[in-house]
């Protein structure tokens, strides 16, 4: 989806749309969804009514003051709406471009895979589950489905933003196709798996647009807390009115508090900062995930990502580079290294795999043996098969073979050769070190062993150690044998590994981890990963994977990158951290607001209380106005933080907490003292009060 903002113009358009939406969102129906802001909304209406009655002479304070309070309260509502609208803006832009891909096309329905000629043209919207369609080069795939015949290169840029085409073929783990993508070459027969309205693209549009955004459990819990605080503050202000009347009567003076000021106090105290930004934070978190090209099927999944304490990572691609490389030739039985390297290179000339190429390169580097021409007619290349588990070349009358140790042992001994204990020992040593031994033989005589090594990716060790500091355990999943796996695990610095992994093994491991109270995240792509994906707390399916895997997972990684899991965890944590930090900030703000408003209210009743006016605000009215203006402006000031998320570092829970407490707790205590004073000075300077 990498739709980066193309120009300032797009940004301005987004901004204008957000401003327009801020006003549209003033409708009571929208406001009712956010209880804290509903309180502000009602307060704004109430003060406006008070102003109107004040104009007719029924008042307890001046009409101008009531009007000022009313205007600021309306502004507070608009600012909150704006925060939400701007957060939604990015998603809406994404949704627009996705909608462009989701147009009705002509689908070529066929009765069976075998009769590809019998094409009926129908509308893509009318396709049903199980229908078969033929898609040829240049055509758009009409619906989500499974390739049941053929292979084709497909341009998926409409959904992934990645312009390089990908191969989709029947059978195996690359069989899923998405409606709205385009076949570039060849043809495929697709069995439709979803009907119009429920397709991947539909879900994606709904997700990025936030239309299907449901409040997550955590968000609900926070909202309960905020509502409870608001209720307490309603009671505080209501009781304050009677307290004030009671005290005034005891002192024999008129009640000094006005309803307008109490409403202002209520709005100041209510956790409006976090209340206004809460939904923006959630939407922004989702949108950060989208920008990482991950599509979460629910908001719940992204929060669960923050809780994950165990990552099951595939070795290949995440921990090691995708391929192994030759790093050493070890000759046996008094064969010279050159002789071994020469034979190894010959046998690998036709081997186009990265491993094969690395053998050729190593021979050249170490012994300056030049690759010979492949066109040599006397060379007969024997390709690798799963059955023989060896490959090689017949050349110049000799038979050169290389392959897995057991296969080579059988091959040599079968022909009467000797598989020496020296060779056996070397093979075992390489395995123990986490390498892969390839035994090379010429005319049934073992020359030596090539040491193929897994290359650990740069920086993964540090990454895992950071994760460990945060309490996240990494588990490497590999098909290697336990010895190899252990060696790589040690080198990469993962905490644990699952060797010779089978789908059942993965599922079993997730279950046992969960039983011990862990939250597990994994990625997967194959159909046989589906049970494990369904079991995991956070399951990321590769977009390149099968339909079954995508359905089992609760997120889809459009880039199909195995390292994405780490980013997802970061985004999940950041989302929760932003919520927590802004809540703390919002509540801590109340202390200063009390110090602004309470002395202002009661200095007439008890002159001694002016000692509490530690900010030395100019007058009672300016104190109330400054506090409530601060309360509105802080929402705008914090929108960038809500959208970007608070700073995230991979450190332990204790350190994170002390840092965030310091910044947002202490900062939340101090900031309003400073800014309320500044606003007060400005108001006094402008002679507005």
């Amino acid at each position, binding site marked *: 989806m990498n739709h980066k903002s193309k120009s300032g113009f797009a940004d301005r358009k987004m901004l204008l749309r957000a401003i327009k939406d801020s006003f549209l969102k003033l409708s009571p129906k929208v406001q009712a969804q956010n209880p804290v802001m509903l309180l502000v909304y009602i307060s704004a209406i109430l003060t406006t009514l008070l102003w109107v009655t004040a104009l007719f002479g029924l008042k307890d304070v001046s009409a101008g003051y009531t009007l000022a309070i009313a205007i600021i309260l309306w502004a507070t509502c608009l600012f909150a709406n704006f925060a939400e609208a701007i957060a939604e803006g990015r998603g809406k832009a994404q949704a627009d471009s996705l909608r462009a891909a989701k147009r009705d096309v002509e689908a070529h329905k066929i009765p069976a895979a075998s009769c590809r000629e019998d094409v009926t043209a129908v509308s893509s919207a009318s396709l049903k589950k199980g229908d078969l369609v033929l898609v040829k080069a240049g055509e758009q795939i009409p619906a989500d489905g499974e390739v049941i015949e053929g292979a084709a290169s497909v341009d998926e840029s409409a959904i992934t933003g990645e312009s390089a085409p990908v191969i989709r073929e029947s059978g195996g783990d690359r069989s899923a196709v998405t409606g709205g993508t385009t076949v570039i070459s060849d043809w495929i027969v697709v069995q439709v798996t979803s009907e119009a309205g429920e397709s991947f693209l539909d879900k994606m549009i709904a997700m990025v647009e936030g239309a299907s955004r449901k409040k997550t459990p955590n968000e609900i*819990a926070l909202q*309960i807390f905020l509502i409870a605080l608001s209720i307490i503050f309603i009671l505080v202000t209501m009781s304050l009115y009677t307290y004030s009347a009671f005290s005034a009567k005891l002192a024999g003076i008129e009640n000094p508090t006005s309803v307008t000021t109490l409403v202002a106090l209520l709005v100041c105290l209510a956790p409006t900062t976090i209340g206004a930004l809460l939904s923006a934070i959630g939407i922004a978190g989702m949108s950060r995930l989208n920008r990482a090209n991950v599509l979460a099927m629910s908001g719940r999944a992204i929060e669960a990502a923050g809780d994950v*304490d165990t990552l099951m990572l595939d070795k290949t691609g995440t921990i090691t580079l995708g391929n192994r490389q030759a790093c050493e030739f070890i000759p046996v039985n008094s064969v010279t290294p050159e002789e071994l390297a020469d034979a190894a290179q010959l046998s690998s000339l036709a081997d186009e795999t990265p491993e094969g190429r690395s053998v050729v390169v190593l021979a050249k580097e170490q012994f300056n043996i030049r690759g010979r021409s492949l066109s040599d007619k006397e060379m007969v290349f024997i390709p690798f098969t799963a059955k023989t588990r060896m490959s090689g070349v017949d050349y110049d009358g000799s038979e050169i073979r290389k392959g897995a140790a057991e296969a080579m042992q059988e091959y040599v001994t079968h022909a009467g050769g000797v598989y020496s204990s020296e060779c056996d020992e070397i093979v075992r040593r390489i395995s123990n070190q986490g390498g892969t031994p390839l035994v090379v033989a010429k005319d049934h005589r073992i020359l030596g062993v090539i040491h193929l090594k897994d290359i650990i990716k740069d920086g993964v060790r540090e990454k895992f150690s950071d994760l460990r500091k945060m*309490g996240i355990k990494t588990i490497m999943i590999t098909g290697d044998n336990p010895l190899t796996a252990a060696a790589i695990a040690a080198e990469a610095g993962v905490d644990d590994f699952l060797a010779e992994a089978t789908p059942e093994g993965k599922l079993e491991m997730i279950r046992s981890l969960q039983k011990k109270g862990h939250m597990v995240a994994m990625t997967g792509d194959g159909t046989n990963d589906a049970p494990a994906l369904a079991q995991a707390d956070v399951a990321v399916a590769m977009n390149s994977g099968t339909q079954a895997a995508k359905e089992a997972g609760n997120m889809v990684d459009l880039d199909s990158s195995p390292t994405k899991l780490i980013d997802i965890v970061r985004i999940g944590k950041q989302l929760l*951290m932003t919520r927590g930090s802004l*809540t703390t900030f919002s509540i801590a703000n109340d202390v200063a607001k009390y110090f602004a408003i309470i002395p202002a209210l009661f200095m007439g009743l008890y*002159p001694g*209380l002016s000692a509490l006016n530690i900010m030395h605000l100019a007058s009672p009215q300016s104190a109330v106005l400054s506090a409530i203006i601060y309360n509105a402006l802080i929402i705008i000031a914090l929108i960038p933080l809500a959208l970007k998320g608070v700073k995230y570092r991979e450190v332990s829970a204790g350190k994170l907490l002390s840092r965030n407490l310091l910044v947002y707790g202490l900062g939340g205590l101090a900031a309003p003292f400073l800014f309320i004073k500044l606003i007060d000075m400005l108001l006094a300077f402008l002679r507005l009060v």
Partner: protein
Amino acid sequence: MTATILQYLFYMALLVGLAFPLGLYITKVMNGERIPGVSKVLTPCENLIYKVMRVKADEQMGWKKYLLSVVLFNLFGFLLLFLLCLCQGFLPFNPQHIEGNSWHLAFNTASSFMTNTNWQAYSGENALSYFTQFMGLTVQNFVSAATGIAVLFAFIRGLIKVKSQGLGSFWVDLTKIILYILLPICLVMTVLLVSQGVAQSFAPAETVDLLEPIAVDSEGNILEDAVIDGDKVLVEGAVVEGAVIVRKQIVPLGPAASQISMKQLGTNGGGFYGVNSSHPLENTTPFSNMLEMLALLVIPVALCFTFGRGVKDKRQGRAIFLAMFLMLAAFLAVIAVNEQAATPQLAQNGAVDLSNIQQAGGNMEGKESRFGIASSATWASWTTAASNGSVNSMHDSYTPIGGMITMLQMQLGEVIFGGVGCGLYGMLAFAILAVFIAGLMVGRTPEYLGKKIEPYEMKWAVLVCLATPIGILVGSGIAAAVPGVMESLNNAGAHGFSEMLYAYSSAGGNNGSAFAGFNANTPFLNVSIGLVMLFARFLPITGILAIAGSMIQKKKLATTAGTLSTSNGLFIFLLIFVVLLVGALSFFPALALGPLAEFLGMTA
């Protein structure tokens, strides 16, 4: 100076020293373990009770059944006490022939003692018969305390058990708590108190000669400078007509010691006599004073250690203990310093020599000269921390800031040790709030002791934490608008407001102490204060049991480096911060109009 400070340190050290072993003992009772020596005697009694009452000793109740048992049991206790108060005139053990109470006073008293508040809108020696005292009040002293501890036990089980249902049996918990914990300690303490001369008798009040007769005028006011000459009363040489000479006094008696030991141990606080433990027959000697003082906090403190053992992580109990202890120590220090420093007004014209650090200096108004400032301030801070409410000095006469602290400790929800059982479970609800905020700040769905905090727990936890502020704000807010309330005040201005605020704070914190002089025995005050007490008691009980019922079904999450520690210094700090913040945000305006206004008016 040093001696005074040492006195405070001695009390605090002794308290913790006694509470720690008691906490371990209570854990054993909670877990139903065999206790050498004790079980041999008590287990047969226990089994007999189960047999007679047809209690299934191994029953495991779900939270709703546990709650229903608590409520029904307390309702029964309430009705019994209500009827006793109404009908005491016709009942035995009434040598002073005291009449039945009014319906609203009976309602208030029954609510008060059933909820472990022990707010007294009456004066014991004038308004209640011995029968009501020992059959009604003393019984409620036991069972209201046991109810609090039982709910705590159920909550602890909810935290430690994994994916199950049963919180234990309320009837078993109630029996065990009374039989193994409350009765034995109470018995020892009663004997010790009687040894100090605290009254314990069914005899009617005694009439004794005054050492020196006094004269009162026809309206009953004492004539200060009167000279009594035979039957004549002379003031400045002139005979006062209609003056009466008083030569005898009534010394009230009654089964006091047994009730007093339980009122202290069970954080009840309802005095046998009107002036509570400042009465010379309720609190006779420095030793009885120390004993009663330690008794009022020892079980709440012990329960912190019980909690730590109960959840199989002693550090958790220690953290909660430290959070409470640090707040208690800080508040005690504020009261002590303010009472010692007194007010500028007291020093006017050399009325009080404030330079004297010994008891004659400082604010001695309303304090017993036999206890002095240190023992009075300690008692005042402990009794308002512990939701006990018994007093050995009059809080009304404290300096504005000293008095404010006593009020604030109640307004914080009585979680600084608080009432037996309820203080701790109240604090644990605050711990849930604290982990919620802290958990979010470290990017994890919050959890406490491995159990996830979800909307359901959050809903009840905020209700538990806010029950006290809601009760106080609504109660006092309405009272401030009711015309007649002002006539109950004993003082004008900010102090008058404080008296009213204190009354509702005491009810909302289930404390029971009062700013003396506030006449609470009116229909409106009796009913409204009674309702606040019921609300502040049963909403948290419901919430805590609901949380327990939900927590017990959850799986326990593994502890990793990403888990937020709930036992380190940072968390203790955060917990204190949350408690103070909720209290401060709820009550800053109210306190500003009461004690703060009084203080600032005094110093300005």
